[in-house]
């Protein structure tokens, strides 16, 4: 599968389009239907982060690129705004009762839990990148 790329403005109204793009690419790559939702959700959370935090309310560009590498379906989300530090996001305690639970941090939690690998890169020219990997397990 050749890489597919989508460039959008950093606006939350673009999330539906991004989901559709990523789902179509994943299906074309042969990702099992049960895993398409996981990819859709992890990508949505990564793009939401970029849109809400990278440009401090200004409009910027968010790029989503999908490709197949070995047996992984890979999604790379790139922005050119403020660097995102995943270590500063609190890890939610999903075992704690709700009353004592901080409701934040779920977005990053889902990005980690719903994929088989996640990387964060920041490089002036290449921008801030989140790379999400999901193993392609075809139905037998």
């Amino acid at each position, binding site marked *: 599968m050749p890489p597919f790329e989508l460039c959008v403005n950093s606006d939350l109204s673009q*999330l539906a389009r991004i989901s559709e793009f990523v789902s179509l690419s994943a299906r074309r790559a042969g990702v099992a239907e049960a895993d398409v939702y996981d990819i859709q959700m992890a990508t*949505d959370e990564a793009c*939401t982060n970029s849109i809400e935090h990278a440009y401090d309310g200004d409009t910027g560009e968010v790029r989503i690129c999908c490709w197949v590498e070995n047996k992984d379906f890979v999604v790379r989300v790139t922005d050119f705004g403020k660097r995102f530090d995943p270590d500063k996001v609190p890890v939610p305690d*999903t075992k*704690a009762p*709700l009353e004592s639970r901080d409701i934040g941090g*779920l977005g990053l939690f889902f990005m980690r839990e719903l994929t088989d690998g996640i990387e964060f890169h920041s490089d002036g020219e290449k921008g801030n990148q989140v790379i999400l990997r999901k193993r392609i397990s075809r139905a037998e």
Partner: protein
Amino acid sequence: MTIETKELKRCNVIKLEGRFDSSVAPALAEAFRESMDDGVYRIVVDMSGVQFFSSAAIRALLMAYKECRRWNRGDVRLAAVPEHIAGVFDLAGILSFVEIYPDTTFAVGSF
């Protein structure tokens, strides 16, 4: 995305349809807020038509759940949660406290 609130004797039913990402999570929070402002803290969320439910939508749901249960005045109960979304709820540890029913009739009857 559509949000429709139906007022019943025992509770309100909020029927959700479509995609619930960060762009529409505020509208979801607003729907819960309107019920609570009317003094209705017993809410059933009909999720049968939901295709996508992001962490922002989950936060709106959990905030409403917390607020409705305060002083034992009510509860937020879910009906007909699609399997893929129930899987995400389970991952976030939500299923250990939020009650889920197979359909709206059961959920309404539980109040």
